[in-house]
């Protein structure tokens, strides 16, 4: 293992769930911490300011982790700063790598979002029609600024070159540990790759009929989790619960199917897949028994692109 390495962590547009996944490493973190010198972790953990990171010499940090997507000008700026200061940059979690849950906002325009947030909801009282401005003058002398709210959500790879991608919402802490150890020990794939076991969720799922020596059957009806309780043993997809495990990276060890929840694809696409949603469409439609059944799948865009809309070929709804 090398000497201490310098680590920087930026939370861009995410919810801090990925930060929690790193903290959740618990004992593994104890093994790793003596080798880490955390120079920046904002805005959640360390009391280091943006200007401190900006003042550090370029390429002075060994490893940078960025979680969260790019929605605001501030997030884009800080991600660019991270890229300049870090030798290796890792997109941590579904938002940074693919756009994540907030990426579904790309189905709506900025105007739609502002109208809902500042005017239309029942509990909103905004008679003067005030919306956030990038600049505002208070008392005629104090100029206050806010970062610009962009038209679209983007994964960080749309803004900077990313060395490694990891999926998960959040990534399972054991996987974060394995990824960190791989970086510390220098056991890394070529830059631009995903840090993954390469297996699909189905490969590691105990429900997979293929692993039990049974034949896979076609889907005969479409069900939703609200419709009843799935069988504890049988494959969720075969039972009709649309599960995207076949096209999702299985670094999570199939935890959701283990507790009766169909996979929604937060792990990111399995290697070789460029567009998660389209591959999911191909895979799910191919395993249906009848062409009419596909009409029973609710809102396909938000089901198949739940975590990956901004990184899809389509990018978002065409306006």
């Amino acid at each position, binding site marked *: 293992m090398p000497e201490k390495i310098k680590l920087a962590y930026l939370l861009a547009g995410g919810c801090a769930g990925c930060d929690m996944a790193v903290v959740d490493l618990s004992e593994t973190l104890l093994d790793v911490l003596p080798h880490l010198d955390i120079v920046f972790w904002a805005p959640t953990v360390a009391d280091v300011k943006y200007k401190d990171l900006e003042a550090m010499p370029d390429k002075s940090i060994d490893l940078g982790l960025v979680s969260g997507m790019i929605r605001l000008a501030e997030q884009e700026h800080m991600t660019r700063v991270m890229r300049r200061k870090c030798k290796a940059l890792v997109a941590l979690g579904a938002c940074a790598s693919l756009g994540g849950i907030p990426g579904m906002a790309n189905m709506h325009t900025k105007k739609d979002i502002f109208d809902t947030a500042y005017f239309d909801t029942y509990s909103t009282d905004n008679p003067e029609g005030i919306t956030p401005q990038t600049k505002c003058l208070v008392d005629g002398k104090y100029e206050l600024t806010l970062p610009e709210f962009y038209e679209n959500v983007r994964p960080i790879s749309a803004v900077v070159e990313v060395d490694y991608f990891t999926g998960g919402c959040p990534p399972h802490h054991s996987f974060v540990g394995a990824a960190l150890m791989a970086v510390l020990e220098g056991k890394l794939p070529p830059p631009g790759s995903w840090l993954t076991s390469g297996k699909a969720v189905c490969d590691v799922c105990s429900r997979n009929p293929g692993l039990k020596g049974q034949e896979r059957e076609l889907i005969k009806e479409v069900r939703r989790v609200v419709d009843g309780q799935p069988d504890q043993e049988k494959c969720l997809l075969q039972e009709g619960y649309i599960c995207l495990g076949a096209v999702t990276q299985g670094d999570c060890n199939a935890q959701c199917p283990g507790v009766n929840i169909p996979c929604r694809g937060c792990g990111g696409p399995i290697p070789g897949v460029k567009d998660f949603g389209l591959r999911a469409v191909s895979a799910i439609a191919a395993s249906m028994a009848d062409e009419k059944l596909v009409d029973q799948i609710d809102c396909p*865009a938000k089901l198949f692109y739940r975590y990956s809309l901004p990184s899809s070929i389509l990018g978002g709804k*065409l306006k």
Partner: protein
Amino acid sequence: MSDWKPNIIVFACNWCTYQGADLAGSLRYKYPSSINIVRVPCSGSIEAEYIVEALHKGADGVLVGGCHPGDCHYKEGNHKALRRFNLLHRLLVDMGVEPERVRLEWISGSEGKRFAQVMNEFDATIRKLGPSPNGRNGNA
């Protein structure tokens, strides 16, 4: 805009639609030069990615041609194509792509005339829609 010619990709199954295109040629049926045929083993081998990637890279319309139901050389490849197509169609509508830009047709090896008819029809549909927003002449 007046000299705009659509760019249309046709994925034609080797056993039926491609043979239909061949027959259309032998019988001297005319169809527009905007049609670019890609010969594929089976309509069931066409994944959603191929269609969307074609649209993304500048096609104004994409047509998938397969054997009539029950006639698939690989037994049920065309049924798989239909299931995938139906689901992709709904996804594209959600995503704001004009659904008329993608089409699935069953054209057998003996339907040379029908092949030419469908191509003329599809070309007319695309000309009416105009350049795709993702296409070569669009703005995006």
